[in-house]
């Protein structure tokens, strides 16, 4: 093995990819969602009449920008929720089939 190859091998060992902590994903997604909520609230509170004054146009415009940034976060959160839903769907299916069996038994006993 040449010296350069040895260095490259060591570099591969040294720079192992680092998994981001779970808390980071949660924080990132939560932060975006909070920004979206805040932006939505600000827009909701804004009376249309205030829009007649051009001096007031900056704040809602900023809120729209923040809201659009945060929307990405919402997508991420939604994606995560769907993932969680998928994980729990197996349990739900089991629960449902157990309920079906119980209903069926009950019907037969009554019959």
């Amino acid at each position, binding site marked *: 093995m040449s*010296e*350069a190859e*040895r*260095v*490259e091998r*060591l*570099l*591969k*060992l*040294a*720079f*192992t*990819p*680092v*998994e*981001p*902590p779970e*808390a*980071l*994903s949660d*924080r*990132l997604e939560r*932060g*975006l969602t909070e920004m979206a909520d805040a932006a939505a609230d600000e827009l909701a509170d804004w009376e249309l009449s205030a829009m007649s004054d051009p001096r007031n146009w900056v704040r809602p415009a900023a809120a729209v*920008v923040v809201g659009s*940034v945060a*929307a*990405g976060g919402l*997508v*991420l959160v939604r*994606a995560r929720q769907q993932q969680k839903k998928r994980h729990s769907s197996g349990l739900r299916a089991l629960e449902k089939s157990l309920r079906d069996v119980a209903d069926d038994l009950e019907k037969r006993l009554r019959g």
Partner: protein
Amino acid sequence: MDEVTDKQRLDRDFTELYRAHLRDVYSYAYYRIGNHHDAEDLTEQTFLQAYRHFDRAQRESNGRPLRPWLIRIAHNLAANYYRDRSRRPVTQLDDAAIISAPQGTEEMVEGREEVMEVLKGVSELPDDRREALIMRFALDMDNREIARALGRSEGATKVLIHRAIKQLEQGLEAGDEAGVET
């Protein structure tokens, strides 16, 4: 209606980008900054800024992968981090990532000292050489991607990486010789 569809498509694409490269951005930030706390902040800021400019970046990418663009954002933010706080890049990592490497324990113990030597050598490299090595070895980026992330030509990037490895080689050789003499 079209706007809604565009927005949905954009959000979907951004979600894919986020999922595919969260680890890349975090690894880059961690090796660049040297501690988990600031690496988390840098990663967060990178994705926030990426989302703000995602539409334009996607339009201008002509279908090319967006990872170099994402890493370039992290690279610029890291540069600001050092400039604003008058910090120098750090050598010491919070907990050496090599601990979590998938290699066997025996191999790790044997190679550990050498790996630490290499990391020490990397910390003494000029910033651009260090960055190129992080991108190549932590993120497994090729020369073209690294060139785009660093805003250089492919040829210049190839030379940059070659010189970085050469410098490390010389440093390790000097270390070996010093070890033999003592």
